């Protein structure tokens, strides 16, 4: 059997330093936001303002993960919106159900 002819010719490219640096920067942002959330968790009193800050920071983190790590920011616009628009239903579902819950106390 001609063994050598089956071996693929692979050209390995050098690491894309700029891209890798950017990925670590995104990771640093995620870590910093999480650290900030911890500070908020122990310095602010519970209330709607605290919840709002947490939700906002969570959306920022989600944006970085989906946009950069999952590469969605750089995909074709039609794919970008095909993924993003349906999540609007989730936001409506959240608002509707949490309101519903506060209107029907168990005790």
């Amino acid at each position, binding site marked *: 059997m001609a063994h050598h002819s089956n071996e693929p010719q692979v050209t390995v490219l050098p690491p894309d330093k700029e891209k890798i640096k950017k990925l670590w920067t995104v990771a640093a942002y995620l*870590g910093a936001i999480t650290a900030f959330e911890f500070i908020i968790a122990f310095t602010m009193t*519970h209330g709607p303002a605290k919840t709002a800050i947490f*939700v906002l920071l969570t959306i920022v*983190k989600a944006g970085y993960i989906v946009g950069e790590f999952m590469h969605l920011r750089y995909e*074709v616009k039609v794919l970008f919106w095909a993924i993003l628009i349906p999540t609007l239903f*989730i936001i409506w*579902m959240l608002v509707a*159900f949490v309101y519903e819950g*506060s209107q029907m106390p168990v005790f």
Partner: protein
Amino acid sequence: MSHSSAATVSGKSVWDGGVSPMGVSYGKLMMWFFLLSDAFTFSGLLITYGLVRSSHPTFEGLPDAFVFSKEYWPIPEKVFEAVPFLHGYSLPLVFVGIMTFILIMSSVTMVLAVEAGHRMDRKAVEKWMLWTIIGGLTFLGCQAWEWTHFIVGTDTPTMVKDFVNGQWITKEVTGASLKINQYGPQPFADFFFFITGFHGFHVFSGVMFNFLIYYNTVTGVYERRGHYEMVEKVGLYWHFVDLVWVFVFTFFYLV
């Protein structure tokens, strides 16, 4: 709508066939749509948590005066304050913070594996996939500890009212099960098991997929195929697991 009309014959739409209007392969597109549907499943769980939680009274006093009771929803940081090897110390949310860090780091190593795959660098893909697997297994180990601690409970039991043989009795309860728990209203413990359990199962299957990709990389399957797109597809799944944890962390532990 689409701006990628450069590849099309003039007068024809990108949707007329022959090109991929969304610019990705079938497998990757289907992974995106699967993840979207999975996002709805997780939202269902987390929003139901929000519904049930908002229908329970909140603890009105100062955080220092907080005690476990069935009468109001517990403050999460008063429930999750244990760290392995540091028994007896009150370290609220520290352990769950470590878990978050581990999962974010394993997401970074995953995206580095994808980057190495673009360059056909087999050795680097192997290295970063292995780190991603280790990160996933570490997270699962942490979760096993977290669950054990939640089930076993604190040193001092809580007096809990329970309905036994047709009458209300008060008894000492430590830890939690799906039937009774010491921390607060029963749905709190049930949601803990269901939400973190469902997420943990995703992490577990993610580690399995990652191992499969690692195995195929080591045996040279992708090198012979000429591309490492499978690393990207499984990478999407792994990042999604990280993404869900970000939401679980906020809505279950912080808020």
